[in-house]
């Protein structure tokens, strides 16, 4: 443990979209959000593979339509390529990842090491989440960790960044310049507490927020109203989660098996109301309608698109919702849009 007193903070990171002059944006995503433009992030489906090409193939499609690509951390407690590795691959190829860190599988020692490692690989956006329980996944026999909770994780990351220390107080030679995010689920009880809980996350250091899938506009509206009453939209950028439903059956599966996903009956009924082969199109249409309505809500700074096993739809949805082109792109080394293989980095 360090005997010296902790000095700091190194710099003032408590900026909002209103004070653009404070500190230069640490990431492209932050730059888009601070410019006041409507931001779009999208989730990359992590491969069950040791081949980096699968990550690049998924990223090249997403990158042209969003400002940040979320690398999920064994979402649903299902094992996939690790989020830190996906992020490292993405930054090597010039893409903009959002590193998801969950508290389920790693204790505070592992997590702090990963935050440093990710920052060293050029990762700037980090989403701090609790994580689905191990029982939700394909290996429910696993031991759950949850050494920290999401709020403690956020605060720890902020301490590392602003004060240049580990939790132990030991000094870092170079702190990680991270843009910190949190998740929130306005669609799960206790509904009345959710806005205040988000306030707590923001107090712990969250600068951007990505919500769970939104299929219930009235709940979202109430949540945003209360969040705005608390002034949260001034302190953090709130991105609303959306995604297309593949079919009525997929909707039933998601709402009964995926933790935290709430799909109202009328959405399921609407999908059931069309022929099986039309349900996919209907799901996409519902998603675009929700996007249009979410954009009108005061305080919403952007969208977070999640399309499990429907990644090819993400680009269509974002385009048809009128959200293209994306600003401040830094990832356009490709001469043609069709080029599927990004530049491979040099081995040294």
């Amino acid at each position, binding site marked *: 443990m360090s005997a010296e007193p902790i000095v700091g903070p190194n710099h003032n990171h408590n900026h909002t979209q209103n004070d653009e002059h404070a500190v230069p944006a640490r990431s492209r995503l932050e730059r888009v959000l601070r410019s006041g433009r409507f931001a779009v992030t999208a989730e990359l489906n992590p491969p069950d593979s040791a081949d980096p090409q699968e990550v690049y193939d998924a990223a090249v499609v997403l990158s042209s339509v969003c400002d940040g690509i979320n690398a999920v951390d064994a979402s649903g407690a299902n094992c996939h390529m690790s989020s830190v590795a996906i992020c490292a691959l993405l930054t090597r190829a010039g893409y903009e990842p959002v590193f998801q860190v969950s508290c389920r599988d790693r204790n505070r020692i592992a997590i702090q090491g990963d935050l440093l490692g990710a920052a060293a690989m050029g990762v700037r956006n980090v989403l701090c989440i609790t994580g689905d329980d191990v029982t939700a996944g394909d290996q429910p026999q696993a031991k759950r960790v949850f050494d920290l909770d999401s709020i403690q994780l956020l605060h720890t990351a902020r301490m590392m960044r602003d004060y240049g220390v580990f939790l132990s107080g030991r000094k870092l030679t170079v702190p990680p310049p991270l843009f910190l995010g949190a998740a929130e689920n306005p669609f799960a009880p*206790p509904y009345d507490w959710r806005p205040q809980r988000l306030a707590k996350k923001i107090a712990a250091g969250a600068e951007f927020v990505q919500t769970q899938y939104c299929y219930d506009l009235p709940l979202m509206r109430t949540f945003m109203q209360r969040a705005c009453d608390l002034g949260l939209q001034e302190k953090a950028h709130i991105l609303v989660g959306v995604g297309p439903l593949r079919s009525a059956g997929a909707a039933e599966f998601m709402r009964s098996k995926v933790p935290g996903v709430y799909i109202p009956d009328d959405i399921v009924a609407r999908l059931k109301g069309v022929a099986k082969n039309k349900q996919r199109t209907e799901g996409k249409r519902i998603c675009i309608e929700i996007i249009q309505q979410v954009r009108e809500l005061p305080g919403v700074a952007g969208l977070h698109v999640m399309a499990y096993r429907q990644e090819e739809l993400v680009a269509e949805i974002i385009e048809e919702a009128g959200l293209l082109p994306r600003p401040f792109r830094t990832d356009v080394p490709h001469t043609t849009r069709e080029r599927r293989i990004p530049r491979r980095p040099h081995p040294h």
Partner: protein
Amino acid sequence: MIEFLRRRPQWLEKAYQLTERAAWTLDPLIRKIGYQRVERLIKPSEDLAKEIMFGCQHCGQCVLHSTGMTCPMNCPKNLRNGPCGGVRPNGHCEVKAEMRCVWVVAFETAQSMPIYGHELHEIQPPVNRQLHESSAWINMLTKVDKQLPSGWIPAEEVN
């Protein structure tokens, strides 16, 4: 009887407040006898009472009064700062479908706790796992339960 008390969190928080005051009043005496000796003496009854009342998990750093007189260590994810996003629409736990989410209960009970109810919104620091299986009352008197990691500066001092 237990249900009766659980439904009256304002009584429980009052009882907590009185016990805390008594503990601090007795602190000089306890120090003289020796914290470890007193710990051995009170630990069995502390455990029994807290297990029956709150399903105590023996974390050794009790925050019951700050979490609506509901033990957060009963949350399968050990969350100390509020509910996760997996709470079911009926207010039950994502992991244990038959159990009401401890944070849904905590939020309800905190509403009727005039003394400590507002502490629900305070940020709880990481758990010190070394205090597991030690007496939370003694840890309160020796103040080890309030010892923060050196690299943890409370949010209110940072913001």
